[in-house]
């Protein structure tokens, strides 16, 4: 294994084109200079890291992959293409739809050295924090999708991201591009076994071209010992639409920091989340919706539950530029606290510089509703069953808005099972 140093950075991607090598070098400088984030900074508040990045190493070769589990496979009977990244490196690619460019970043860079530069340049900047710097410095591979202008692809693309080797850090880069007037759907699945103590730092870069429609579904199902610190940056062009759903189920600590720039006039973003933490999990969401164009719409709708000693964090920022008149922007975060030891933080923020906008936010937190439980019990359902139905319904409100209904169905069954297991163990 390779330690996270200058030599590892220089060789991480194999033969980098010049522009990428230059980015890496800059990022490595930031990586060396920046301190580990501290909970004294607002954007890292509530989170404490008990490790250092260089506790982890890069793999020499990917570990043995898991097959896709049956639930996901059944939900995706047909894909427009699928690929697998294991410990940060591509292990297989099946490209079914020849109209799109889809596959391993490293392989495609070798063929089209300059194709991705403008997209990658729009992604999360490497000076954002030490993890973002490490990502650019050490990322060895990733997944790329470019849907050309005017092409609409119905079947989803599937990207299976796995961590299999304890002690390793991996930095998968996922770049998804929908060119003008195109349409695509992508499902990203993160997984690892419960005993894999790995650090995964994915970056997602989404470019939604003018008048295009991109659907992205992220299913985060890391094992209980895996830590993930991910960033997502999206740019949406004129009349473009981004529909993003994230389900957060696993991980010792799993963080997603995202920023969506509604750059084009008439652009919109629909962001849905469903997350469920138990035991000592921390699920950490930091969302920024940045309205820049005229007549832009956004809706963030996240529902989270915590039980045992889990902690969840949602901070949502709606930023409306002075030029972004006629904006409609809403964020909703509802939290279910299922155990006395569990806690949730929910911090909605607004920063509005325009004067002709509609904007709203709502945040709630509490246990299951007694009146709803009484109603269900009056129909003959015993208390545990009533509670299960209420938890199911709570998440269903979010999952019903997910971009891929079949995937939402699988996530629903996992969430139901997670709550049921806690019930059967007498934890809730």
């Amino acid at each position, binding site marked *: 294994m390779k330690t996270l140093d200058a030599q590892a950075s220089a060789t991480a991607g194999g033969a980098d084109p010049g522009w990428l090598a230059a980015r890496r070098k800059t990022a490595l400088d930031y990586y060396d200079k920046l301190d580990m984030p501290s909970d004294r900074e607002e954007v890292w508040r509530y989170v404490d890291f008990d490790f250092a990045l260089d506790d982890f190493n890069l793999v020499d070769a990917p570990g043995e992959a898991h097959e896709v589990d049956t639930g996901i496979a059944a939900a995706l009977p047909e894909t427009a293409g699928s690929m697998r990244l294991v410990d940060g490196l591509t292990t297989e690619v099946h490209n079914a739809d020849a109209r799109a460019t889809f596959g391993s970043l490293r392989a495609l860079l070798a063929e089209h050295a300059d194709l991705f530069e403008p997209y990658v340049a729009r992604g999360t900047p490497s000076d954002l924090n030490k993890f973002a710097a490490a990502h650019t410095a050490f990322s060895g591979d990733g997944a790329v999708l470019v849907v050309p202008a005017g092409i609409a692809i119905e079947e989803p693309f599937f990207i299976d991201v796995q961590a299999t080797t304890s002690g390793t850090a991996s930095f998968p880069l996922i770049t998804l591009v929908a060119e003008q007037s195109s349409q695509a759907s992508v499902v990203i699945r993160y997984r690892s076994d419960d005993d894999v103590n790995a650090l995964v730092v994915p970056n997602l870069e989404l470019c939604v071209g003018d008048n295009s429609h991109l659907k992205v579904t992220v299913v985060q199902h890391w094992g209980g010992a895996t830590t993930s610190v991910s960033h997502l940056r999206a740019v949406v062009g004129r009349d473009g639409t981004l529909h993003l759903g994230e389900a957060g189920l696993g991980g010792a600590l799993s963080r997603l920091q995202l920023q969506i720039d509604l750059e084009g006039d008439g652009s919109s973003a629909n962001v849905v989340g469903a997350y469920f933490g138990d035991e000592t999990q921390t699920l950490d969401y930091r969302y920024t919706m940045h309205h820049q164009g005229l007549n832009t719409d956004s809706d963030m709708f996240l529902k989270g539950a915590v039980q045992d000693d889990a902690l969840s964090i949602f901070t949502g920022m709606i930023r409306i530029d002075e030029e972004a008149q006629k904006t409609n922007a809403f964020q909703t975060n509802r939290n279910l606290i299922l155990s006395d030891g569990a806690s949730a933080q929910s911090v909605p923020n607004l920063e509005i510089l325009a004067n002709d906008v509609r904007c709203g936010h709502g945040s709630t937190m509490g246990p299951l*509703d007694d*009146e*709803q439980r*009484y*109603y*269900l*019990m*009056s*129909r*003959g*359902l*015993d*208390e545990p*069953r*009533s509670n299960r*139905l*209420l938890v*199911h*319904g*709570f*998440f*269903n*409100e979010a999952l*019903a808005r997910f971009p891929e209904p079949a995937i939402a169905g699988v996530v629903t069954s996992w969430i139901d099972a997670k709550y049921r297991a806690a019930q059967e163990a007498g934890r809730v």
Partner: protein
Amino acid sequence: MATALQVSGVRASYGDLEILKGVDIEVPFGEVHVLMGPNGSGKSTLCHVLMGKDEYEATGSALVDGTEVMGLPVDERARTGLFEAFQYPVEVPGVSLDDLLREMDEVRDDPEFQDRVEAMTETLDMSRFRDRAVNGGLSGGEKKRSEMFQMAVAGAKVAILDEIDSGLDIDAVRDVAHLVEELRSDDLGVLLITHYSRILRYMNPDKIHVMVDGEVVRTGGPEIAAELEASGYVDLVANEASIPTPEVTPFDI
């Protein structure tokens, strides 16, 4: 055959406040009884106490088809055959009526449950509500229709309809009254709780019970409704002091 509902000496208090002071009511199978009374007389408390809501201290006996339900958890009372139609049915977000029906079926050993669901969906024109959230975004009348639908499919032996006419406009009151009559059966006893006599114009109750200050002070035939309509609760129970008169029709909610 036992009577559908036999309530004897039911007392209930909320904290230090005694609300029910010994209630006796009998509803035979096949009959529809009405329990009337002014605000604060304890009608809704009786309903909750019979269903088993845990915020009251309650004593006494309530037999559902001969089975004692006092002391049982809410869900066991329901499976014994007791059904409460709520005054304000709570919305259950994200849970469709079909989800609820599936769970109701699973907890009952009742091979005819599904048949009733299909039959009653047709009879009560419920198909458009089954994939919607329970009570979500329904009008007052639609919520009451959904309650009556659930009553019919649950296979209830006793239905307590808690002010199913409140908050409805006059057309909806008539509709719900007709539903009660339509669902009348030899296997069911109904106790309809109401504050207003107007719903009685559209149905034929077998008996009317008047409750004041936690006790049933009068039981009689439908003629009581006519008296109430004419004079309100004050004259009807002349020996009870300082009883508020019924209010005018409330705003729809």
